[in-house]
């Protein structure tokens, strides 16, 4: 096993798949010679050639349309949208085209494309480099939506996404690239070096799409979360004095509701945590499905912790970010009423 941060793990997933499958091609803005603005594709052009790892014009709609066309002609494109805040010009191609191509053609055509995109705040990126737009994509039928929370999962899930014959939007919480983040910006930055999920095999392996993971077992309540908030929730769980179970969804759609329901039915209490804005967020869907599956086992109303319903404010990043304090408040409400 090698030690990798999340960028190195993502880079390695590309490298493994470029090696394994000649139909894999990688492209996006600045991903070629430069290796991407977060270095996720560093060295890949040099190793695999300019025809397989290359720069694109600045046009996200063009990038995704190109990927769809290449995918229809037998290739397996892996694209990078530089920031998920920049994904909206590609919205039509993702929502109206990639997602429905298989369905509308009666299974004759499909879009085996991967759309990687850094998301989330905590890096002083302001409103145009901090958003968590996953809920906009989870709403669309025909797209698989992933958000990894650590290097090991990121690599295994990315390989699965690349091999998947359906379109996958793969969100990467950029605050986690260099280390886990527990929600307190005043604490020194952590690295993946000593984290169990920073141990990453150098070769090929996969983590199945659609499977959640229990990252902390407990009997008092269940926190359902994903991305950066996995680590914030774990930190809050430690501090709470309660025996908290934490589930990292990893894949948002298709949602692993069976995994969630078996936990919540056992603990009887639940909090759903995400960084994205609250109203219409994916948390609302999770909460609704839990209610369908576990209503008669619930001992308290389900709480939600989420970003406020405002654009990400540059100077108030830490007042916006749902940190440990807000998760702890929710734990208290759920446990003590």
């Amino acid at each position, binding site marked *: 096993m090698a030690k990798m941060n999340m960028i190195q793990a993502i880079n390695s997933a590309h490298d493994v798949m470029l090696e394994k499958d000649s139909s894999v091609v990688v492209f996006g803005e600045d991903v070629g010679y430069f290796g991407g603005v977060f270095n996720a594709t560093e060295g890949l052009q040099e190793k695999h050639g300019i025809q397989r790892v290359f720069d694109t014009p*600045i*046009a996200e709609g063009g990038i995704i349309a190109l990927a769809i066309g290449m995918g229809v002609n037998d290739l397996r494109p892996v694209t990078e949208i530089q920031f998920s805040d920049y994904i909206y010009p590609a919205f039509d191609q993702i929502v109206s085209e990639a997602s429905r191509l298989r369905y509308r053609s009666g299974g004759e055509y499909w879009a085996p494309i991967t759309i990687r995109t850094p998301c989330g705040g905590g890096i*002083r*990126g302001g*409103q145009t480099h901090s958003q968590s737009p996953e809920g906009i994509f989870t709403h669309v039928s025909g797209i698989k939506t992933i958000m990894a929370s650590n290097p090991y999962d990121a690599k295994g899930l990315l390989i699965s996404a690349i091999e998947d014959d359906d379109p996958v939007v793969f969100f990467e919480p950029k605050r986690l690239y260099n280390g886990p983040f527990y929600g307190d910006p005043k604490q020194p930055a952590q690295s993946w070096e000593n984290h169990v999920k920073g141990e990453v095999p150098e070769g090929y392996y996969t983590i199945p799409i659609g499977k959640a993971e229990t990252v902390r077992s407990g009997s008092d309540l269940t926190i359902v979360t994903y991305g950066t908030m996995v680590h914030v929730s774990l930190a809050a769980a430690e501090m709470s004095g309660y025996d908290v179970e934490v589930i990292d969804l990893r894949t948002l759609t298709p949602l692993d509701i069976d995994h969630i329901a078996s936990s919540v039915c056992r603990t009887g209490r639940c909090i759903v945590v995400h960084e994205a804005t609250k109203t219409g967020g994916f948390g609302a869907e999770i909460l609704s499905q839990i209610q369908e599956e576990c209503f008669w086992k619930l001992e308290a109303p389900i709480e939600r912790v989420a970003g*406020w319903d405002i654009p990400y404010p*540059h100077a108030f990043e830490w007042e916006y970010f749902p940190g440990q304090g807000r998760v702890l408040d929710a734990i208290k409400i759920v446990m003590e009423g």
Partner: protein
Amino acid sequence: MAPNDGNKLNVPAPRNRPGETPEFDNLDIPNAGAVSRPDVMMDPKEMFGYANSLIRVLKMNNKAVGEWDPKLCADDMRKGLYDMMMTRIYDDRMQNMQRVGKMSFYMKSRGEEAVSVAQAMALDDKDMLFPSYRQQGLLISRGRDLLDMMNHCLSNSRDNCKGRQLPIMYSWREGNFFSISGNLGTQFCQAVGWAVASAYKGENALSATWIGEGTTATSDFHHGMTFAAVYNAPVILNVVNNQWAISSFQGIAGGEKSTFAARGVGYGMPGLRVDGNDFLAVYAVTKWAAERARNGGGPTMIEHYTYRADAHSTSDDPSKYRPEDEPKSWPLGDPIERLKQHLIEIGEWSEEKHSRAIEEITALVTRKYKEAESYGTLNSGERPEVSSMFEDVFKEQPEHLRRQRQKLGV
């Protein structure tokens, strides 16, 4: 399928990469004064040549020549020079302050100062500006107080954007300067919308907008060009071809196949291509386009042929993707140096005056910065009220946001 050796995927690559010697000898640069100045109402169909040439006024011997010479008085040229110098010194100071953690981010406009300063001077103050993130010279030329610009960049208690926006994403309604988005190209067709409204109201004001050559790849570019042409909007559509979009050279935006100015002709409007480091030429083409728009001639696209002499932003290191001495090798020189030498040539400026101006501006920038810092920086001192982050989402704060604010306890 049968193989075809002639069918190869083409991925453009720049001529020189780090470690290599920059080469610009393949550029086709006509002499200053070589391009004629057409009538402002000329039919775009007859103007294809302008899109494939380069309008230049300042010769390398520092003289102004040709039909495009705007014959500016010395005071105006000195104002232009002073504002370009101010822009550069301001940029340097702010970048340094970013490096020591006073703000989160910065973007300099080094090498491109003529584009914004000359254009601001060539337009009327009532004309509306829809800039990208590298036209801070527009603000300086229009007289925005440096203190206000700094307060914004520091996200402090006097930031007119109330701490909500990344540094350099200025907004200045009073100065007819639109709020900068941060998402590329979105302002391009919005400027057309503003101009269409001006035509609807029968007013004399036009709008001007700026994007980089990289952004011509976005759909927003196509929208702007099409809508401007269809409605004959009084708008100046500027493409600042500074050769680099972060790490992608202009060939990745399609610059190897034709000039960017030539796209204008394809949409049915004049496409003027100008030496963007030539203050007088930039001023002259902007005047031409403005006069055309005010006479009902509609939109003009201008390609400013220039060079991004510094990093894209504080987040990238250009020595990773282009030769380190490429900026120095740019054959069209530096806009400040060229205008300075011209003024000296005609006896209206001197090295001593120039040095004194640098000292004056540096002192001003230092003084303004100290005052700005007294109103707080991103990480210390006064900030806007935290509760203000729940305001302006809507005109009236809805109940759910009031409750969220209470939950935060502010």
